[in-house]
């Protein structure tokens, strides 16, 4: 039986909450300039005895249940950052089993030229190539990411104070300020104008569900804690590989023992990985394209088909009526917006196969066809039952989920309106896309590679994500700039020549440590 999560006070709050009520946020990209000062600040923000007293601290998930937080601060490190902090060298060693995973060690962007093809797999080619990034391509890699959140009107002062304290140990090489999203009530919109932050996996904090049983023949949204937190069982019932240390490395006994490896300390426990991508959106380009191609409704229909949700409400294009999906509800709005799978729409007539949300989470179960008799299960498991041509083309969703914590940046106005009125905003806008996952390669990278930028996704050809695609032709000059919009009539369903609407401007893989691990990094003398 899997272990429930209990140590909320050891988990950074961002895992549990996107801090929706803290409307203002900014992300500081730092480089360590003075090791002892940097450690002193880290010690102070985790309230180490003897450290300087600050008026703020790293927010943990326990704080969130104690009281309303007026502001929040979170810290994450890149691999070069941890090395600069003198984290034990074996964590980065080639061929070790207890090291940080390779994708984290290498980072999201390799040095140019990218020898082994991570950028190729992530679609970071053409305009998106790291060589064009504003930050994140070596040597422009940050060591530390500090995320600040505050109530309306309170960020500026908070940020100023933090930056003043940081100045001794760090150089702030970039401040990524976010926009207060155009809001109506509780809904947050991204720059194209869609409601964002609707669908998230529900973390199984209490280990109520056992993954891999017959119940997974149906799509579920309640996902094992180990998919988003290291040190807990994942969707395979296993512990995701993570940094472990010899007890000799931890003379002050800060770290917890590894639950599955006797004699090792778990540096990863209650931490996770944070994928950061700076995605610029061409809002005018997007709305002028869709309104030109589909003038009837000023492009709204087409835009909705490309995303998979309604512009005004955020409701899904397919009817959501299924209340019984595990991890959805009981809130009525959640059922209306997330109580669905794509099973009732096998031809993609209601929601195109390529729609952003149908790619990013196809809501598939372990086997097409769901629960049926034992014989049928056996025949399907052996591939002996003729199914539809798309059966088994997509992996089961539960192994490929991420928690999204991104924030929009840029102009705060209603972009679509201004574009349509011929007054495009002068400011660049986009999303600081942030995803949390325990296994970068199986979660974020898989979604990005196999689903979002895959020109052959779900049996289609010549198209990638209509919002995110880089439109670069693939080998042999095969186009990737189409989008299919299946129609009952059978034709007239393919648009060609989509321009690129989203451009990658930066990015990095970070480790979001537990508070224990933060203390460990702050204390570590780094003699090893």
């Amino acid at each position, binding site marked *: 039986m899997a272990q429930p999560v209990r140590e909320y006070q050891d988990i950074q709050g961002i895992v549990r909450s996107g801090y929706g009520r803290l409307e203002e946020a900014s992300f500081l990209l730092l480089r360590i300039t003075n090791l002892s000062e940097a450690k002193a600040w880290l010690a102070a923000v985790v309230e180490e005895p003897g450290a300087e007293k600050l008026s703020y601290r790293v927010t943990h998930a326990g704080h969130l249940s104690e009281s309303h937080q007026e502001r929040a601060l979170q810290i994450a490190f890149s691999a070069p950052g941890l090395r600069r902090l003198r984290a034990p060298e074996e964590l980065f060693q*080639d*061929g*070790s*089993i207890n090291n940080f995973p*390779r994708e984290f*060690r290498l980072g999201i962007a390799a040095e140019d030229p990218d*020898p*082994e*093809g*991570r950028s*190729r*797999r992530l679609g970071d080619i053409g305009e998106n190539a790291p060589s064009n990034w504003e930050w994140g391509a070596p040597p422009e890699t940050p060591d530390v990411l500090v995320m600040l959140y505050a109530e309306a009107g309170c960020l500026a002062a908070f940020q100023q104070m933090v930056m003043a304290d940081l100045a001794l140990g760090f150089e702030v090489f970039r401040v990524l300020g976010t926009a207060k999203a155009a809001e109506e009530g509780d809904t947050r919109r991204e720059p194209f104008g869609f409601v964002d932050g609707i669908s998230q996996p529900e973390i199984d904090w209490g280990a109520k569900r056992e993954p891999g049983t017959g119940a997974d023949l149906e799509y579920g949204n309640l996902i094992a804690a180990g998919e988003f937190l290291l040190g807990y069982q994942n969707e*395979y019932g*296993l512990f*995701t*590989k993570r940094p472990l240390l010899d007890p000799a490395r931890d003379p002050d006994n800060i770290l917890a023992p590894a639950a599955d490896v006797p004699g090792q300390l778990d540096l990863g426990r209650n931490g996770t990985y944070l994928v950061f991508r700076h995605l610029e959106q061409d809002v005018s380009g997007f709305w002028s394209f869709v309104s030109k191609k589909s003038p009837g409704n000023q492009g709204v229909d087409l835009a909705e088909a490309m995303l998979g949700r309604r512009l005004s409400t955020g409701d899904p294009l397919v009817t959501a009526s299924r209340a019984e999906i595990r991890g959805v509800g009981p809130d009525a709005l959640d059922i209306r917006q997330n109580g669905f799978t794509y099973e009732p729409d096998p031809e993609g007539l209601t929601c195109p196969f390529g729609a952003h949300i149908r790619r990013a989470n196809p809501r598939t179960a*372990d*086997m097409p066809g769901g629960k049926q008799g034992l014989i049928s299960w056996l025949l*399907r*498991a*052996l*591939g*002996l039952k003729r199914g539809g*041509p798309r059966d*088994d*083309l997509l*992996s*089961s969703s539960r*192994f490929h989920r991420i928690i999204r914590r991104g924030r929009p940046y840029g102009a705060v106005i209603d972009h679509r309106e201004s574009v349509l009125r011929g007054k495009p905003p002068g400011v660049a806008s986009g999303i600081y896309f942030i995803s949390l996952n325990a*296994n970068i*390669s*199986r979660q974020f*990278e*898989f979604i990005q*590679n*196999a689903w979002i930028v*895959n*020109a*052959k996704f779900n*049996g289609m*050809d010549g198209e990638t994500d209509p919002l995110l695609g880089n439109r670069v032709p*693939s*080998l*042999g000059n*095969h186009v990737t700039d189409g989008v299919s919009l*299946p*129609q*009952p*009539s*059978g*034709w*007239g*369903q393919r648009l060609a020549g989509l321009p690129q609407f989203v451009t990658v401007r930066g990015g990095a893989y970070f480790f979001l440590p537990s508070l224990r691990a933060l203390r460990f990094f702050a204390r570590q003398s780094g003699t090893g």
Partner: protein
Amino acid sequence: MVAAPIVPSGEADLRKLLLTMNDSPGTADPNNPLVPFGVFDTLHFARFVILNDATLSDLSVFGPEAEFPDAPIYLAFLGDCDGSADFLLADFVDRAGDGLRKIFAYCDGFNPNGDLLQWMRSHSVKPAANYVNWIGRTVLQIREEAALHEALAKYLTEYLADRSIRDKAKDQPRHIRDAFVRAVDENGPRLTPPAPTPLGWQIRRLISILAAVAAAFIVALPLLMLSAGAALLVYGAVLLIISAALAVFLVHLRRHETTDPDVQSPPKPPSDEHLAELGKLQDHDVTNQYTAFGSFKPGPFPRWTTTVIWWLVNLATPILYPRGNLARIKTIHFARWVFLDGKRGGLFASNYDGSSESYMDDFVNKVAFGLNLTFGQGVGYPRTRFLLWGGAEREQEFKDVQRRHALPTEVWYKAYPGLTLIDIARNARIRQGLERKTMTETEIRQWLSEI
């Protein structure tokens, strides 16, 4: 597959020579002067790979007598083709003899002035099991149908640009189809009638089916010949014998599974350098290659078990999975399982659509049992339970093991870049639709939607 040990000192030079055949990393130039794969129009896939097994030292956990310090390093040449492989080999000698001689010159005992064909034949290794995604589908057919799809897509765009046609066709999609049939008749592309499935395949299939019928007949024999009571007795006895044999097998199996030394404790992840080497060659096309090599655990049990299982795989896959899928996997074009070195080691080679991570996802989540059965006796394979469970279900351990055993495939050729199996199957359906005599309106709409 042709496989011959190379002269170890020549390995680096051979690698260099092989790399000259590529136009981008891991992808052969179809017109490269050494072996211009493009001229062989029955060839689907081909590869040259050096089987230098870096995991050989794993055998030492079984004691010094299991070690194999001077295992040969093989150069393997694999191809998947229509029709007879022997015929293709002769064709290779005819049209690429000089290049092949240059390559095989690195092999031990190769005589550049000798009979190349004879040499290749004597070094050819028959795979223990072979899998073909779609039996009887030729390179020619795949290419012609892709051209047809492209042409029809263009016609369709032209048609729909005309408003009056579009309006008319809304109610009568038959118009479009009729026009297409005429257009293809007049302007092509030309479609060669599908070649009959090679006789060899048909005979194999026939034999398999006959064997199945014969087996069924033997099973039914007591019922036909004896009284009910006596038949029951016979069945009971046979069942008893089978159960006993199975029990003996399972006891052996479990003993091996629980007591064999574990190469994976402590686990051995692949090195960064090795992964970089593999990554460099992957994801240039929508299809990727996979070549893995490893040793079997010492002793007769692992070899015999694998021999029987691979034999069954070879027998059963053309019957159970002749068209489009291998169990639940629909992305494998060709795969083969080959014994090498007197069954000391085994090779698995496949061509699959998508990235390595999604291939592994399929392995772990859809056919873990199949991987366990076919590779469970390999040294270092993650521990199995009853050869069906465990193993590939141990996700990260399995991924590490298979990547550690994967070999960088220096030279890899695919006859139809850009096409996945799903594309190929769709193009075939489009052609069938065009050639059918009659179609209902719903069928026509369905057909048009695929164009």
